[in-house]
């Protein structure tokens, strides 16, 4: 008897089955956004202690009004100018003696902030302010901090903070995470601490 070749399995419907599955996943897929601006809320303080007095010159007030106009230090400002104004304020370094800032590159105007550690940005909004405007302003203020931090990281370690953080995050297993790198990142964050207060 002649040896017969096994009949070939018809794979024609395979594509149909795969298409069916594909369409199911296409329909159910939502590529979710999972990035955003991280913030930390201040804890509620029940104690009766007086809050420390902060000098007016160390506070940078940003107020977003109900018609989405922005008042910076009581003067009307456009969104595009905010980043520079915030950088100028944070990096001013007007302090003397103990409060001097050795790494600031600002104007050293005595009427503006003493050093980045003292400088506080106070962001106020009204109930009618639109969320998108608020996020735009937050974004610009965070950008100001990031610009300064990156500059500082470039000076000290020759790479930007973003690169350093990416490198730190890329090291997969925890025991190989570089302690040195973490220290460097922390140092930058101490030099330019993010003191952004969201007042109700």
């Amino acid at each position, binding site marked *: 008897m002649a040896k017969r070749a096994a009949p070939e399995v018809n794979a024609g419907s395979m*594509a149909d089955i795969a298409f069916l599955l594909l369409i199911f996943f296409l329909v159910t897929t939502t590529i979710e956004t999972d990035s955003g601006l991280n913030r930390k*809320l201040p804890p509620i303080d029940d104690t009766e202690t007086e809050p420390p007095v902060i000098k007016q010159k160390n506070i940078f007030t940003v107020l977003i009004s109900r018609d989405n106009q922005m008042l910076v230090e009581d003067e009307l400002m456009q969104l595009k100018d905010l980043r520079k104004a915030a950088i100028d304020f944070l990096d001013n370094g007007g302090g003397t003696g103990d409060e001097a800032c050795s790494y600031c590159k600002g104007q050293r105007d005595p009427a503006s902030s003493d050093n980045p550690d003292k400088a506080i940005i106070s962001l106020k909004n009204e109930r009618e*302010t639109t969320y998108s405007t608020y*996020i735009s302003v937050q974004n610009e203020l965070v950008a100001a901090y990031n610009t300064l931090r990156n500059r500082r990281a470039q000076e000290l370690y020759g790479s930007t903070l973003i690169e350093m953080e990416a490198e730190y995050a890329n090291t997969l297993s925890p025991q190989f995470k570089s302690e040195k790198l973490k220290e460097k990142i922390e140092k930058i964050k101490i030099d330019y601490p993010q003191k952004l207060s969201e007042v109700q």
Partner: protein
Amino acid sequence: MGKFNKKKSGDVPAISTASLPDIVFMLLFFFMVATVMRENTLKIQNILPYADQVEKLDKKDLVMYIYVGQPQERYQGTMGKESRIQLNDKFAEVSDIKAFLAAERASKREELRDYLTTALKVDMDANMGIIGDIKQELRKENALKINYTTRKGDISENKN
């Protein structure tokens, strides 16, 4: 000569579709890997604003989502047009956040509870008033780590 003639005389051979399943499977695997099944059915409009200084939210299981926005059209008859909060699958009031946080915390392992982040997914057109109320409530419940979820893009796209 006969050999050559034979080749020419035949019909155009059918295009082989044998590799079609492979291609489709490749696409299928991509979508299977990239798919995140939606946890909540949105009952509100949720067009997120843009920002470019974003940080990634890692550890998705440690994130609690609070959605805010105008109710979708089919709910506007009962819920009105003002921005509302949505927790899980339901419309909620500010006062419901407390119970929501407690439930979320209870569902996580104890040592992870301190790392919980609250992601605020807020529609571009919402007012800050409701956000302020939520933030106040979160402060009361000591859930201080928050994240304003945004899309990546230039802030100039936020103009409406």
